[in-house]
């Protein structure tokens, strides 16, 4: 180690110039195909829960508070920005935005919550599988004579119970 090698090192350092980004003062654009936070569009969403079923982090929770209202909750805290939800969404209701500056002091700031109105299916009472397809046939609302005079409607749960009907949704709601 001699003085010359130190001098050489200093020259290399000087030659590189200034490389540091002036980041928070100046915005830094992301690459074109960057995937950031998913944004949900309540106008397009039909509440099919395909996104919730395909999310590897189980980040999207779907719960029915009553017959007519389905709540879709995106927690945002352990989202990996993988884009699977937006890939499977049949209505293209999820956009992978370019937002990455999601730092916050309150984790509920990254939540998104949609209340979706679900209309009641006149054939099965629900628009998704109740128990099994065979048992569905036994439901009263499925019978064709009832359909004809529209006298039967499925009991609304809007005033009855607010806790989620499916047990495994207990994982972590907030």
């Amino acid at each position, binding site marked *: 180690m001699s003085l010359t090698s130190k001098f050489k090192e200093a020259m290399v350092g000087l030659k590189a110039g200034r*490389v*540091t*980004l002036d*980041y*928070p003062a100046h915005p*830094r654009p*992301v690459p074109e195909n960057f995937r950031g936070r998913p944004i*949900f569009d*309540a106008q397009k969403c039909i509440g099919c829960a395909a996104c919730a079923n395909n999310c*590897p*982090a*189980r*980040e999207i929770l779907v719960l029915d508070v009553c017959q*007519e*209202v389905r709540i879709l909750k995106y*927690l*945002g*805290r*352990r*989202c*990996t*920005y*993988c884009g699977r939800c937006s890939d499977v969404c049949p209505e293209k209701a999820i956009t992978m935005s370019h*937002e*990455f*500056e*999601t*730092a*916050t*002091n*309150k*984790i*509920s*700031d*990254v*939540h*998104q*919550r*949609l*209340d*979706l*109105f679900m*209309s009641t299916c006149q054939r099965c009472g629900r628009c998704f599988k109740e128990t099994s397809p065979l048992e569905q046939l036994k439901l*009263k*609302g499925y019978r064709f004579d009832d359909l004809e*005079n*529209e*006298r*039967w*409607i*499925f*009991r*609304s749960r809007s005033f009855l119970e607010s806790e989620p009907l499916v047990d495994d949704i207990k*994982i*972590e709601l907030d």
Partner: protein
Amino acid sequence: MLRNLCQKMFGRSLWVYHANSGGCNGCDIEVLNVLTPYYDVERFGIKLVGSPRHADVMLCQGPAMRSTARALRCAYDAMPAPKLVFAIGGCACGGGIWHDSYPVLGPVEKVIPVNFYIPGCPPRPEAIIYGVAVAVGLVDKKVSPVEFKQLQMPIPRYHPSDLRGEGEMVVYEKAEKI
């Protein structure tokens, strides 16, 4: 309040301790990236230290695991007050994609109090810098919760007072075609 306190206390000398309690190393690499000349957080006086006893801020990566939760808690207790904890990455903020498996207890906030969250898997280095800048009060946070509510139910097909219960079903008294 917290922000004012932070600005006063930490001014230009945040010493950070980097704790990985079971993440995949993705976030570690991004944190180290932030310390390189390219992003250079020493502009804000941030310096990496090797012991929690010297640190003001703990950068947590990875979820609280069954095997590391106790060590994480000890490291937190060893830090002198006032102290801040940053949860970096989806694992530390929410437990990661294996949040419901056996060895994962959950987000680090189950073990230690967390002051700032930086979600992402891993977050971009810029996102980490942004989180630090939010903490020291250089910029404002950009996110806020989004809620879409049905304020009004679409017109009901029946009036509740005309309903008569009958087992699982409800009969509409004034049956008429709609």
